[in-house]
């Protein structure tokens, strides 16, 4: 089996997780910038984090033969402070030329507030001005439906953005049609408690066809499973999906979306 982990917060994971992922057939991991579990107090904190994502983490992954890519932003959970967000967005262009940066992400909304929306629009504008792809975080639990609608409307209203270069992540049964109908890609996050189980993700693949879908673990410092993608592949196998269908979902689809960035290149096998 081969697979891509298209969304994993590896700065929060141990080296043992890299070993397990490489052993399970992972070829590359993509790491969007996210909330560290506490609020950073200054743009300098983000500068250091972006250095970690573009300098240190790729070296750590490479020790186990894994390619490492990243997406940069200030996460929606830290977007209520618009002044801080503006200062962070201003330093992102310094990093966009780095070899493992695929785009802007994971941007989006958390509690669906006016300030969060303002900061989302700043990021969309940055992506449009610099021709970057976009990876979107949708809110949690009761806030997801409303947030997904607001996010899709905000991105669609910027005509410079090509929908096929945007992925709306963390979709569930009540939100999956919103990005797909608008021409975006959609990501299903496999969590043990919130978001989506492997069985539900495979249900959605069967219902919606899997043309513009991927699955990810979004493993981070919380309750999450770094091997969630290969476990979902096992779930597909249990249901009798052919190996080529499984490969399309866990390898070819992420490669197809991510290869829209010329920087997404996998190490030769």
């Amino acid at each position, binding site marked *: 089996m081969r697979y891509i982990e298209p969304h994993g917060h590896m700065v929060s994971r141990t080296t043992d997780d890299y070993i397990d992922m490489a052993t399970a057939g992972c070829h590359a991991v993509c790491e969007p910038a996210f909330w560290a579990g506490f609020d950073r107090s200054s743009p300098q904190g983000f500068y250091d984090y972006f250095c970690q994502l573009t300098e240190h983490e790729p070296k750590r992954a490479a020790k186990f033969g894994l390619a490492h890519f990243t997406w940069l932003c200030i996460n929606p959970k830290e977007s*209520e402070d618009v002044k801080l967000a503006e200062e962070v967005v201003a330093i992102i262009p310094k990093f966009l030329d780095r070899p493992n940066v695929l785009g802007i992400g994971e941007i989006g909304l*958390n509690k669906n507030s006016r300030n*969060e929306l303002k900061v989302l629009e700043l990021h969309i504008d940055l992506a449009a001005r610099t021709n970057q792809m976009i990876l979107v975080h949708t809110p949690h639990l*009761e806030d997801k439906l*409303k947030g997904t609608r607001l996010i899709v409307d905000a991105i669609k209203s910027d005509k410079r953005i090509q929908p096929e270069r945007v992925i709306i992540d963390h979709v569930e049964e009540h939100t999956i049609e919103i990005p797909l109908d608008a021409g975006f890609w959609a990501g299903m996050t496999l969590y043990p408690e919130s978001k989506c189980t492997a*069985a539900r993700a495979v249900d959605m693949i069967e219902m919606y066809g899997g043309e513009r879908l991927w699955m990810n673990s979004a493993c981070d410092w919380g309750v999450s499973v770094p091997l969630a993608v290969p476990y979902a592949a096992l779930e597909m196998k249990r249901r009798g999906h052919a190996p080529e269908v499984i490969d399309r979902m866990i390898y070819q689809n992420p490669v197809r979306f991510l290869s829209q960035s010329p920087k997404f290149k996998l190490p030769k096998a």
Partner: protein
Amino acid sequence: MTRQQVLDLYFMEARAKVIDLSAFIDRVERATGQEDFRMAAFRTALGELGKTQPQKARNVLLALSDPTIEPIPAAITKAACGAWPGKSS
């Protein structure tokens, strides 16, 4: 997959989950004090399971979701609680 195959693969797991749900409701009802909006939303969501329409997972999620469309004035917390309190938070 045939319906028989789905049952063979998933029935025991679903059986365990429905017993867990039942035990959770018993536990809440044995406890003292008032229920809050989360349990009310939970009971509404449970009502979706007995209906004959398809897409029960989607409808359960909708029953637990904020249906409004306007951004809230400000985020005063980062956390979500799993059910909509019935007014913009």
